[in-house]
Every structure is written in C-alpha cells, then in structure tokens.
C-alpha cells in the first residue's frame, strides 16, 4: 500500500471520507461537523477540522450540523443506526457525555439484548479525550473507563495515525456501537498512513515495543509516554515490552498475558484517575489469570484522584510522565 506521512487528525478525516464513499448509509452528524457555512469550502469541519471537507463532498443530507443537543443528536444516531443507517456521531469532548449518557448506557448498549437480538446498532461515536491543552476540568477528561464498563458498547482508543484510520474504518464497519476515543493531544502527531482503505481489527492489542524485562500496558497518548520511558529504561539495561491495548472493549487479554508470561513484571499506565479505571482493570486481569506469571507487584501510573487543573504547571504534574513510568518500573522490579 502507498503510504505517506499524515497527521492523526487527517487520518481520521481520511477514514471518514473513505467510509462515506464506500457506503451511502454512512452519515456524519454533530455540532459544526459541517461548520455553519453550509456547502462552502472553508466551512469549519468540526472544531478541530476532523470532518473538514465532508460537507463539500457529501452534502448536507449526509453531513449534518446539529444544535447543541447531545441527547438529541446521539439518540438520533442510535435510532438511525437501528433503522438502516451507519451514523458516525461526534460528541465533541468526551467530557460532554454527561448530557447524553442515557442514550448510550440504556439505549445503544442495551437495545439488542433487551430485544432478544432483533436489533443491531452500527453506531460510532467519535469523541476527544485527554488533558494537555490547558482546557481545564470540563474539557480534558479521560472517561473511557465509563464506557468500557458498559456491556453492549465497544470502546476503542488509537495511539497513532495509522491505527486511528484503520480502527475508525473498522469501527464504522462494525455492527455494534463503538465509542471511538481520540486523544486530542495526538491530533498533530504524524506517522505513516496508507492512502488506501484498510482496517485494524477491534479487540486486538499491538506490541508497541518488544522487550523482555517488564510489561508496560497503555493506550492512547500513554503509549507515547511509555515509549519515552522505555527509551530511558533501555539506557539502564531494562528492556520494556509495551502493549498498546487499542481496544479497551473487547479487551485482548491474551496479548497482555502473553507479554506478562515473557517478563513477569507489570506496570499499567493510564491517563484516567485511578479508581475503577483501565489500570485497575488490567491489574485485576493479571492478578487473576496471570497470577502465576507475576514475579512482583503490579504498579499503576495514573492521574491522581482529582479533576484536571487548569494551570499549566499543575496540568503537567497531573498527566503521567515518562519519569513516573520509569519510577514505577523500578519499583515493580525492585520489590
């Protein structure tokens, strides 16, 4: 496949174009996804430009600006998905899930089960996550543990442009509702991305770095953080293996356990706060099915049990850093 350097946000954009080209039932909807100026070439295309150009190519029937009504727009997408469309709804920031959670928790996630398998809900909700942009407590949260916990939903978190495109195309092709979390601080990250259509399967983790000394499990932005930590660790002769989960639900338990089988030590790095999060979830998996493989305690590197602060100095201290990952690895290996 022909690849070229491409930013994360462009990879998202390209996936949307290709999905819409292939299937007339794919539609995009959300606040300013067209962007106020109708058909005009310079329409916003989303607050960060992720949907830029779609309105010009596919028109207002399939690229739908909505009012600021997340319950209405997400619920409309659920209803549309149940009746023949494959909507990609944009929930601008995942922090806003609080104004529309019911349509995900009690409708999208449960219709199929409650209806005895007679419905399917091929819905994707794209949404931005994570801190680092000085956007403060209501625009910086990492809330995917909430959707991971909900049976009936799938939750996906890409960590690089290649996966962003391939996972989004897989999510759109998937017949179940998928919460697609885009770490906003990665939007400008560049990487090799094939021009063609391709998918990265949901529910399959990736080995972001192979190694034998310790397993580091992460997703999204924290993969980059872990890779930076692994670099320092390598300098001290500690060879970390990094598992990039990519999908939180379904979870690729085998990949986590296989790596643990190689290394015997586990550190889980996650940007969400510690309680009932992914770090706890992976720890529990390892302490149950992987107990016999464990040679030391499982350390977690997470944000603190606190809201995201505004001030840059505080925000930088809030988000897990490579230094904290290194420290956790030392602590895991030493005990």
């Amino acid at each position: 496949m022909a690849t070229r350097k491409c930013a994360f946000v462009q990879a998202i954009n390209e996936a949307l174009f290709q999905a819409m080209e292939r299937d007339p039932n794919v539609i995009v909807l959300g606040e300013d996804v067209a962007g106020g100026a109708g058909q005009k070439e310079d329409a916003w295309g989303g607050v960060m430009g992720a949907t830029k150009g779609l309105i010009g190519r596919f028109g207002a029937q399939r690229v739908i600006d909505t009012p600021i009504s997340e319950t209405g727009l997400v619920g409309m997408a659920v209803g549309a998905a149940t009746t023949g469309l494959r909507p990609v709804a944009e929930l601008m920031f995942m922090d806003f899930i609080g104004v529309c959670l019911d349509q995900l928790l009690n409708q999208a996630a449960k219709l199929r089960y409650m209806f005895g398998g007679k419905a399917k809900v091929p819905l994707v909700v794209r949404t931005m996550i994570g801190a680092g942009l000085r956007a403060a407590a209501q625009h910086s949260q990492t809330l995917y543990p909430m959707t991971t916990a909900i049976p009936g939903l799938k939750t996906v978190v890409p960590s690089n442009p290649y996966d962003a495109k391939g996972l989004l195309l897989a999510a759109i092709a998937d017949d179940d509702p998928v919460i697609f979390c885009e770490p906003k601080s990665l939007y400008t990250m560049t990487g090799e991305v094939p021009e063609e259509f391709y998918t990265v399967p949901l529910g399959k983790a990736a080995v972001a770095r192979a190694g034998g000394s310790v397993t580091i499990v992460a997703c999204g932005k924290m993969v980059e953080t872990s890779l930076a930590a692994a670099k320092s660790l390598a300098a001290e002769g500690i060879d970390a293996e990094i598992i990039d989960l990519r999908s939180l639900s379904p979870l690729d338990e085998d990949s986590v356990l296989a790596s643990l089988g190689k290394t015997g030590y586990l550190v889980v790095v996650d940007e969400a706060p510690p309680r009932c999060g992914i770090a706890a979830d992976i720890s529990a998996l390892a302490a149950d099915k992987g107990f016999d493989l464990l040679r030391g305690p499982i350390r977690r590197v997470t944000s603190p049990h606190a809201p995201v602060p505004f001030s840059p100095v505080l925000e930088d201290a809030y988000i897990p850093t490579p230094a904290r990952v290194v420290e956790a690895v030392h602590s895991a290996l030493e005990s």
Partner: protein
Amino acid sequence: MELSRERLLDTYRTMRTIRSFEQTLNELSQAGRVPGFLHLYAGEEAVAAGVCATLGADDYVTSTHRGHGHSIAKGVDLNAMMAEIFGKRSGVCKGKGGSMHIADLGKGMLGANGIVGGGIPLAIGAALSAKVRKTGSVAVAFFGDGATNQGAFHESVNIASILKLPVVFVIENNGYGEATPVAYHVNIPDLAARAVSYGIPGVVVEGMDFFDVFDKARAAVERARRGEGPTLMECKTYRYFGHYVGDPLTYRTKEEGEKVRATRDPLDAFEKRVVSSGKVTTSELRAADDQVARAIAEAVKFAEASPAPELADLLTDVYVQYSA
C-alpha cells in the same frame, strides 16, 4: 366516517384487545402469576389505535414503559407479547426484555422504553433514516405528559423541526406522571402549546375519541410524509389503572376515574358512534369481543405453556460480534 366497515371492526378489535390484554394482566399480576412491574394502558386505547391506524407496516413507532397498547396497535403478535411479559423464551424478545422492553422491528415497533423520554430521540433517528434513505416512512414517538419535562423531549423536537424530519410527536396526557398531576408539573393548560418553541403545529386532541385522534394523526402523518416536518399532538386521555399494578391510587379520587369511565370511555364512545352510523352492528361488536377474549386466553395459555429461557441465553445478544 369514511372508514370502511372492515377497518372500523379492525379498529374496534384493536381497542378491545388492548383493553382485555390489560385487564387480564392486571388480574394475573395481582395473582402473582406474572413477574415484574406492569404499567397498563387501559383507558388510553383510542390514542394508540387512532394513531397507528394512520400508519403503514414500514412506519416506525417508539413507545414508553406503558407500551402494550402501542405494540398491539402496531400489530405485534399477541402470543409473543404475552410470552415476553411472562419471561418466556417464546417471547418477542426471548424473555430478555419483559413488559417494559417489548419491541418488534419487523413491525416497525422500536421498543417500549423504561426511561421516561428515552424513546423520543430514537424516533427522530428513525425519521432521519427514512429521510436519508428516502424510504417514505414516517416515525411516531409516543410519550406521556410527564415526559414532556425531560430534556430529551425538548432537544428532539427542536432537531426534528430544523431538519424537517418525518416524525409525529404524540403526547399521551393522562393527567398524571406517576402520582403527580399534570397541573402541578407544568404551568400551562395545554402541552400542545410547547410546539411554539419549535415553530411547528401543536394540536390538542380528544384522546378518548378514536375519530378525533385518527383525523388529526392522519393530517400530521401526511404532513410528515410530504416532507413538511413534525407535528406535536397532545391527546387528552386517562389511565384506568394505577401508575403500576399495585399503585394504591391515593392521589386521585375514585369518583374521578368512575366519571371518566362513565362519560368518556373510548370503547363505549366508539361503539355508540359506529353503531349509530349504521355501519357496524352491536352483534358484530359482541362477536369481536368474543374473538378477542379467545385470542387473549390463547395468548395466556401459550405464555404459560412456553419454556423459560435457557441459561446460555444470558450471554447471547449482547453484541453482534465480540472478539478480536
């Protein structure tokens, strides 16, 4: 009265079926023969029957916790409904949903819903689907007076208005949300007036009169189908039983209910009207009553005789596919 004799009889059968279905469930539930909570639709038959009589098989409805009437009017199989309410594997949802989640997408019935207001966004989604896929279908959202105070109502009606979606919003104003009277929970006499907020027609309907419902629903459905956007219909109606089976009904007088039954009963009113029109005879209606009674008895027998779900069913239907 332009409806044919056959359609009038069909309508009567629908309303009678709803009434008998609910009366039967009320007894079964009080006798402990049905699990779970039941919200009965008796008294409101003309709304479901009147609206659904204007719809085709390809049109959609979304429903509420008080959803049996909508399902019956939309043509969901009685046996499968009853078995569902009994929690049996032969139920329309394999016993996984129960009374509050009866759905049959093949009939355009997008589900009862345990979340007040929860079905309204789904209805505009079905309408959007119809519009984008150009199927010509229309969606109807049924919901209560209480549900009009949910954010989901407000957001959905506004979106439907600006996108001119083919949808009809039907408020079933039965005077109460649980124990709370509508005069307490809103400060306006007619909920239909809320249409003003969205720039769409708002219509007050005598919800105990099948013909008034039918006429106004037909106009609204036709308007939707022409691509002119949504209508908000407020059907003034009444629920005969309590909010749920077991409700002590302390918040309304016995007289209030008796008066409605005596003066506004939708089946009585219908009977009087069609018999006096000469199109249908009393004995035809009594024959229909018998037919309905047999069908309900049959449904109960079917439900009771049906096997329970199998334990493996617990984990199926969560996803279409859930693995790497």
